[in-house]
């Protein structure tokens, strides 16, 4: 029985996808959260001076998406064979492209630049990412409400996590994307995920 320790800030950011996977899997883990002022003294303990980091049986693994992929494979929340796993990862990469555009705006920018950037993002950037996600869903979902195959995978969790950040700013962004809306609802209703979401503490990011 392996032991898992996740180190991150006290927020969702780039750590939440791993928490969602562990929750969906019903796997216990130590959820270490650094406050901003605590972090500098722990920076040198992390291989790349960055978090999130996953520690498995004492060995540290950096890089948020590597951690997520590893956990998804450990707990059978990725595709059932190599090709399906590649489809799951293509969806996750596409969601990450979106997070890489939106994340820095909400995490690092200040007003009034933040509002201008968000408006620009919603007008010129977001639609094509949502269209891309629906395109991949149609290609890989075998007619189901999940992104790949007919079961929950970390593709669904990854998209859910990324879109949560955007829905916080505008709850209507999925109105033109019924498939994505239904997919999000299915994720939130998954028994283990529902329990996790209900008990999760609200954080600023």
């Amino acid at each position, binding site marked *: 029985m392996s032991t898992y320790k996740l180190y991150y800030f006290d927020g969702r950011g780039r750590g939440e996808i791993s928490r969602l996977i562990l929750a969906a899997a019903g796997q216990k883990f130590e959820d270490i959260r650094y406050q901003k002022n605590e972090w500098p003294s722990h920076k040198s303990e992390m*291989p*790349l*001076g960055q978090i999130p980091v996953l520690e*498995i049986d004492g*060995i*540290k*693994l*950096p*890089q948020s*998406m*590597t*951690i997520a*992929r*590893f956990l998804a*494979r*450990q707990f059978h929340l990725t595709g059932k064979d*190599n*090709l399906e*796993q*590649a*489809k799951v*990862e*293509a969806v*996750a*990469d*596409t969601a990450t492209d979106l997070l890489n555009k939106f994340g820095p705006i909400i995490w690092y920018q200040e007003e009034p630049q933040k509002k201008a950037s968000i408006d620009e993002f919603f007008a010129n950037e977001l639609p094509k990412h949502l269209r*891309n996600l629906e*395109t*991949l869903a149609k*290609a890989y979902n075998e007619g189901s409400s999940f992104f790949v195959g007919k079961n929950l995978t970390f593709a669904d969790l990854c998209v859910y996590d990324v879109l949560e950040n955007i829905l916080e700013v505008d709850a209507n962004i999925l109105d033109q994307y019924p498939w994505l809306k239904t997919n999000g609802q299915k994720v939130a209703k998954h028994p283990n995920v529902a329990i996790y979401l209900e008990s999760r503490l609200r954080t600023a990011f």
Partner: protein
Amino acid sequence: MSTYKLYYFNGRGRAEISRLIFAAAGQKYEDVRFEREQWPGHKSEMPLGQVPVLEVDGTKLPQSTSMARFLAKQFQLAGKDNFEQAKVDAVVDTINDAITKFLPSRMEQDEAKKQELMNKFFADELPAHLQQLEVLGKLYGNGGAFFVGNQLTWADLYLFEMTNNLLQANGNCLDKHAWLKQNRAEVEKQPKIAEYIKNRPQTPF
């Protein structure tokens, strides 16, 4: 026996890692290269309107890193178990972080601005990334010259390709990084890689 088709521009760019994996594996594939003026006519055939795309037995996979990971797993170049695969992935993600920072200077058209961005990248940005890669090599490399598990994986191939591009722009950039230089030498020595490098098309990117 699967059939593989790789679609990209006529260049190395984001497809070359997949080509290197095919070469290391000795696997035949159709290497489809679009010239710039041909590409608009094919854009709509690709899931996300982008290349590279890997077509496996008729199924199209976008996203350069996921495609490469799929191929690496197909041909046992990804790490021998889930945890090793995660270590390899962590190296790949760290290389991608460096490439992301390198791209603006590489893509800049204005010569004067390009030179300025390049100088800044090599002086201020790259050293930290190279240091991070050496940290991972020492952490996961078991004292050997390969990044993970004392054998060639696609992490080594990916570093090789990235550093080729870096060295073209600045021939001294690895002078302080003996471990990375040694790792490159190991890759260059692989007979199938040496053969591939000798014969591959010379392209501007």
